């Protein structure tokens, strides 16, 4: 009953996660999302679909928002990852996070970390994005609770745009 499974070939990886160096040996097929959640205990990254559609698992890789369910951990050798836990290392809400609370841009909270990561990446590159850019970014995320209106408000607030107006 306790016979071990065949030992997979483990591949060494060295990367930075939330500013800290991580050295690990991983099977080739280990998804980045599982590596972060199960190997590193960073469970703030959520898996909603496992095939790249919903955006819940979005993290920052070298500053860019990407789907962690569509990357293998082994591919991230030498990269810098930021998860939702690393967006605010001191535990204080960032302006992006605060905007979600201010505008009730979340309900169950499952999709929220992915959205926080996407908007954090966007605003780091472009602190004053256009409405079109904001919508394009948010379209990459599924939320089943909010109907998106309050998420859009949150994103507008974080981007310094007027919060209350109908969108085209």
């Amino acid at each position, binding site marked *: 009953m306790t016979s071990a499974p065949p030992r997979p070939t483990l591949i060494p990886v060295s990367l930075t996660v939330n500013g800290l160096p991580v050295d690990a040996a991983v099977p080739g097929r280990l998804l980045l999302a599982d590596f972060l959640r199960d190997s590193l205990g960073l469970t703030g990254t959520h898996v909603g679909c496992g*095939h790249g559609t919903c955006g819940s698992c979005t993290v920052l890789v070298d500053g860019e928002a990407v789907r962690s369910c569509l990357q293998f951990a082994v591919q991230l050798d030498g990269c810098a990852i930021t998860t939702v836990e690393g967006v605010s290392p001191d535990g204080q809400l960032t302006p992006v996070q605060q905007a979600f609370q*201010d505008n009730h841009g979340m309900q*169950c909270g499952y999709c929220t970390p992915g959205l926080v990561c996407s908007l954090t990446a966007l605003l780091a590159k472009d602190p004053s994005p256009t409405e079109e850019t904001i919508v394009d970014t948010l379209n990459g995320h599924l939320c089943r609770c909010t109907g998106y209106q309050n998420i859009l408000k949150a994103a507008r607030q974080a981007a310094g745009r007027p919060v209350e107006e109908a969108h085209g």
Partner: protein
Amino acid sequence: MTVPEPTAGPTAARPKYVGGAVKRREDPRLLLGRGRYVADINLAGTVYMAIVRSPHAHARITSIDTSRAVAAAGVLAVLTWADIKDEAGPLPCIDRYTDSLPVLQTALADGVVRYVGEPVVALVASTEYGAEDALSLIDVEYEPLPVVVDLDEATAGTTLLYPEHGTNVMTTIAQDVGDVAAAFAAADRVYEETFTIHRYVPMPMETRGVVAEVDPITERLTLTTSTQFPHLVRGFLSGVLGMPESRIRVVAPDVGGGFGAKCEFYCEEVLAPLFALRLRRPVKWIEDRRTSMVASSHAREQKHTVRVAVQDDGTITAVDAQSWTSNGAAYCTLATTPASISSAMLRGPYRIPHYRARAHCVVTNKTPLAVYRGAGHPQAVLVMERMVDTIAADLGRDRVELRLQNMLTPAELPSDRGTAIVLAGQVVYDTGDYGACLERAAEMIGLSGDWEAEQAAARAEGRYLGIGLASLVEETSIGPYESAVVRVDGAGKVTVLTGSSPHGQGHVTTFSQLVADELEIDIEDITVLYGDTDVVADGVGTFASRSAAIGGAAARKAAGVVKEKALGVAAHVLEIDVADLEWRNGAAHVRGVPARARTLGELASAATAWNAPLPGGMEFNLEATYQHQAGGIAFSHATHAAKVGVDVETGEVTVLDYVVVHDCGTVINPTIVEGQVHGGVAQGLGGTFMEELAYSPDGQPLPMTLQDYIMPTLGDMPWIRTDHMESPTPLNPYGMKGAGEGGATGAPGALVNALQDALAPFGVNLTSDGPWTPDKVLALIPEDPA
């Protein structure tokens, strides 16, 4: 934002939290990635469950060979029905009628599979990846049986899922009010129509999951599960395994949305405990998205035929309705509720004194169908609101005016509607002003004055615009009860325990608002606990828009009892008659002597001071338990108004504007209520324009991923404008009704009516809720619309 500020002096009037847009207290930890959902729980020594599911819609299992899996490295255990049939009884259905035929699920297929995805064999392996690898090592042979997925064919009964019953119709629900035959005999006009409602699903962003373990200290079973009702799960599991409830702890941690899909008791909640009991190791199972398409409950699919009796003056006198619900392969936990609600609530806000309905629950070779936000309401609203528009058009009447003519007025309430809803009881509308709500919505959407001219001008330019209305009354706040405990510690901090376990509704915030107002304390001084049957002894759950009204009332009532106890303690401490005390700003004050007061913390310390006990008869705590029992159903109401534009060359529909005017009684937190409305509208919009869990004729579900089962994103949504009306219910002391489901309930009716309005020049008559994908819309439009 109107967050109350703590007041300076003890005599100043303290602002109320209830009614204020208080920011959610649960948000910061979720935003920081500190939430804990089932999948986030990684106990030492965890092993992983995977399940072989039927690839056939209907088949007899001729052999199961698990030997390759059993021999495989890393596989720890395998279970088939033969292994567990003596331990695991059938899964419960709690809304069966007394004459319903027994078609219950089992934790694993008992020789016949009746839908694609039905669990056949379960296994446990040492890793999650390895468990999925091992699925291919289980060899199952099937002998296919005839498949029936079409509702009409299933009703005809030529192919039977349970031949022993001789029919696929498992329940017929009857509603009889007045004299329908006489009303039709006297009718000036009779309208008859058949409507089809397609199958779509809740699809919360968090899939389901369980972790089962045997606690090493107590040797009790702990089941952590993504559920909307942990206390009911404890009872269900006890019943299925024949294990006393006292030996079971059920925990609902953070739950990532439910919408009804997690208001069910599932086979995995039996199988993981069975493995945990055998292996004495934590057993974890996380549903993957593909599996969720077939393994989480489906919803909505119905067919309705209605006959409506109308007088020439527009008075609707009678409705004679039949419906058929495609219940899927077996009865699940909540199986007849959609059919029951549809049949009980079809007339909505309209008087219609004579009414007859027969609602048939029919088994089909599909995943079991259960409740989804609104349960049977959205279907009923679509049917009734389409009929009202049809009648208005035929009579040449204004659709707002015709609705107003037939709507119950506030003076006619309360109104016993003569129908009943399973598990909830008699339908007696309590309060509301349906007409005012409708008129406000019509005004906000612009359905007055120039609308017809605007519409005509747009059509002349090739732009096809339409406005649709849907007025609804919905059952909320069902019982039987909810429990709460309020407890004060020596520092004056308050703990609230509620049996209503949330999954995004913001209970921590709204329950804090209620208790803070009752005790006149700061909201930050309150901790709300839920979701663990060992922490909260008793509870029902979060579904049917019940938590704020029933659970919230229980919490506030319990706080009120605590306040009375605190006053009693104060009377003792201050050596004064309790009648000379008043409660103000979180403290007991001597009337007329503001300086003589004792705070809640001081009183809690006094109540629990072991070295200075209270006199005999007084309890040694500042704590109260309260069970709020629902004295009836509270009925919320709303009117939805949608404006759409149709591209008549491509069939693409754009929702240009959307208005919801609604009344859920006393509003605790308007921001949270609006959020509920927005989310519900998005789900209704998804169901109307894109979402469908379609099946092939041989019973294969077509969507496999979220690329196939498409749901709205931001770019698909209109800007939703809301307005609140408040008609408090007398059914609880605080006037609250439910707000969770109205958005999803009204959206399909309003959107389909808007589409109908836009396409009216083409002579269309929409008798389906869609999904109105571009191809289906374009098929309604002649090749050359000019």
